């Protein structure tokens, strides 16, 4: 064989084996939608900081590897539970990563105000408006004022969470002859029936270390969306509607009907404040089951005894936390999401944001697990499980979508007074005092 032919066949062989090797790895990146050309950034390094750890971190790294493969760049992710404190210190001391993933828009807004975030640009904002379900609300979520007061688009929502779900064990329901309620009135009736049968309807746990109380706030927000209009919800978030106004106190009381009722809650009402949120759902699966329903966001299967396998093998399922039939407020849905921001500019980083607009990037994570998206172009069949697809559909069938209120309020309230006062409420403090205290906290920071 001539030298040229040898060289050619060698190249072909190498190319084939490389393709073979990458094929074996490419499961995640082999998505229904094809990835467009983002460019070549061989050798560039992008640093990413976020709060995701464990399984979430694994999935993030896998998804991001698709970007690395396509562009040749290297992405280094470092995740930490203490992200909120760390990122503030890093941004203020010139140690900014390229990308910071904020779990809360509030903190992102604060960092934007201090001038640490890089605007993503109007093009990206209008892309999102057109390509995300309820896109303009998502753009609003990521828009903050900078140091001079000018508003810009900084936070790209990627990876969302659905909160208005009630988890249950189908077998328990079958054994007892219960049916899924489609209205709130039906849900309350079902809870009473369960009590009459000697069962305990609900598992509720709000303990979470420094963040104790956040599950109670989620309950209340879901109930707020079901008892008051979305406009009232927005006014509540910005404190135009005071925390001790009748609408808010009403939502709190309804929550109290669930969590402060000793018969309703496994372990009694007094256990709510000391039960770790990740432990509460385990009652659905204990032997014998200590409760039959658990209202919680879509991430909770990771805390089930079999780490979520129960959903796959039918031991656990969920239904939509229903609205009041009599209230005529449609199908409201409460959710949250992470906001990806650029904290140190570089061409490779910009390319990464372009990558996040591709349907393929969403499908890559969808196929791995707990990931939901509002990207209209993402192929629903890419969802890893029927359960996730069902959640994705709830997300798209919602008539109202609102972000978790405590994440939108200033930290002093949303990550402070709201949490602690709701914990006190769970422990017996009356609604009026709770509302007054939180309102006082609002007034103090105005």
């Amino acid at each position, binding site marked *: 064989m001539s030298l040229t032919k040898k060289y050619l066949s060698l190249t072909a062989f190498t190319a084939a084996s490389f393709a073979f090797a990458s094929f074996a790895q490419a499961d995640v990146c082999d998505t229904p939608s094809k990835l467009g050309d983002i460019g070549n950034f061989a050798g560039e390094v992008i640093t990413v900081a976020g709060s995701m750890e464990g399984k979430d971190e694994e999935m993030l790294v896998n998804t991001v590897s698709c970007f690395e493969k396509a562009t040749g760049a290297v992405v280094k992710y470092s995740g930490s539970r203490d992200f*909120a*404190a760390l990122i503030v210190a890093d941004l203020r001391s010139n140690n900014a990563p390229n990308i910071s993933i904020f779990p809360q828009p*509030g*903190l992102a807004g*604060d960092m934007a105000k201090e001038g640490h975030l890089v605007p993503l640009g109007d093009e990206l904002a209008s892309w999102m408006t057109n390509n995300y379900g309820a896109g303009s609300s998502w753009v609003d979520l990521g828009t903050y004022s900078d140091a001079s007061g000018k508003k810009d688009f900084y936070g790209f929502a990627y990876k969302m969470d659905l909160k208005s779900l009630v988890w249950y064990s189908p077998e328990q329901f079958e054994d007892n002859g219960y049916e899924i309620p489609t209205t709130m009135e039906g849900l309350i009736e079902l809870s009473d029936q369960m009590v009459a049968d000697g069962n305990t309807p609900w598992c509720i746990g709000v*303990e979470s*270390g*420094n963040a*104790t109380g956040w599950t109670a706030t989620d309950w209340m927000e879901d109930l707020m969306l079901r008892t008051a209009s979305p406009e009232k919800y927005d006014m509540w978030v910005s404190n135009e509607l005071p925390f001790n106004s009748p609408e808010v106190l009403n939502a709190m009381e309804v929550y109290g009907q669930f969590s402060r009722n000793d018969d309703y809650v*496994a*372990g*009694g009402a*007094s*256990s709510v404040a*000391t*039960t770790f949120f990740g*432990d509460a759902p*385990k*009652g659905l699966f*204990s032997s*014998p089951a*200590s409760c039959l329903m658990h209202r919680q966001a879509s991430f909770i299967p990771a805390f089930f005894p079999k780490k979520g396998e129960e959903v796959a093998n039918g031991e656990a399922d969920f239904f939509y936390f229903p609205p009041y039939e009599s209230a005529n407020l449609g199908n409201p849905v409460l959710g949250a999401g992470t906001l990806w921001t650029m904290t140190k500019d570089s061409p490779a980083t910009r390319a990464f944001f372009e990558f996040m607009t591709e349907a393929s990037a969403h499908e890559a994570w969808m196929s791995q697990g707990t990931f939901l998206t509002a990207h209209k172009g993402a192929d629903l069949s890419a969802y890893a499980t029927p359960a996730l697809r069902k959640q994705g559909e709830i997300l798209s069938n919602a008539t109202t979508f609102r972000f978790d209120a405590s994440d939108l*309020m*200033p*930290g*002093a*309230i*949303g*990550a*402070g*007074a709201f*949490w*602690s006062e709701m914990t006190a409420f769970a422990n017996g403090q009356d609604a009026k005092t709770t509302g007054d205290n939180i309102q006082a*906290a609002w007034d*103090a*920071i105005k």
Partner: protein
Amino acid sequence: MRSLKPVIASNGFAILLTVVFLLPITAIFLFVFTTPIDTMLAKFGLWLHAVNEWSFSEFDTEERFSKIGFAIRSVIIAVGISFLYFWITNWLNMNLAMYREKTSIGRQSNIVESIQPWIFVGPTLVLLLLFLLVPALSTLSLSFQESDGTLSSRNYAFLWDSSALGYLQFRLAMRNSLMWLILVPSVCIILGLLIAVLADSVRWGVIAKTFIFVPLAISFVGAAVIWRNIFAGGGIEALETINGSTPSYQIGLLKSLLGHTAEYNEPLYSLKFWGNFFLMWILVWVQTGFAMVIFSAALRGVPEDTIEAATIDGANPFQMFFRVKLPQIYSTVLVVWTTLVILVLKVFDIPYALSANDDDKLLLATMMENARNNWSIGGDNVDNLYAAIAVMLMLTVVPNMVFNGWRIRREQKELGN
């Protein structure tokens, strides 16, 4: 006679310059020069890998060994530079003095003696200034500002204004902190002394001391986890009881001994007011080892002949301890007491790890953390409020330090300094 002052000053300055320039450059040079060691060690690691057929990847082995190489040489260089500092400065000191005062040895030693203390305390002063003093002072100034920089004392409003954020919490935190400050160090010291003395007199003393010491080796978070097994109830709901035929379990030992059933979920440290004492006990359990170790060393330092003399005089063990040993380690007791007091002030991990976060259990340190985490992110003068609480915390140590200062002056006078 020419004044020595200019000579001292200029010598000192020369030494300072040398240190500031020579040491970092030497460090960097050494560091760069020894880089090949990493690759050499990586090759060594790969050889070991091949010989022993290790299961993890070659890349991992390479990475680990070159990291070990990096570690070894960094450690050697870092430690070496520290020693080099003292050696070079002393050498320079002596020789510069000799060079500049060739004639009088008395003047030489005068120069050397004037500069030398500063060489000894130099690194300490510089490090502490930069890392602790400057931040402390900037915190102080931050506490008297609004977020935009204007001077105000609004952040301290929680001291006198009952409607201010933190008013109630501060009172609770002070009450609790004082309780902790008085009880924890005293109990630690009494137990520490007792154990140090007893352990010295029995053959299994080392084993005993090891067990008392071990809690120190666990981080505060770990200690909290351990005491949960004793103080806390809860976990998965207890088994159903039907006609009392199936037992239900309490998983906290003390709760079980006290007869709490499994339904009584609340941990003992959540009890109003009395819960504080359970939390305190955890800290005592951890820190007694510290007191014990120090007292053990101190007791060993008590001069043998004073003990012999007392034995000859017929002292019993109690008299031996209280009249002979204790007075001689009195200053050590003071040191341990001061250290424990400061530590108690700073600890916030224990209540935090146990989620005993309610106001009733507040301490100054936890209040500080709350101010930053819970009240923060959004309120505009959060950093300033945090600073104010931090200042209050630091001020509480003033009485202790005044006492220390007085004692040290007296000590130095006794020594004839």
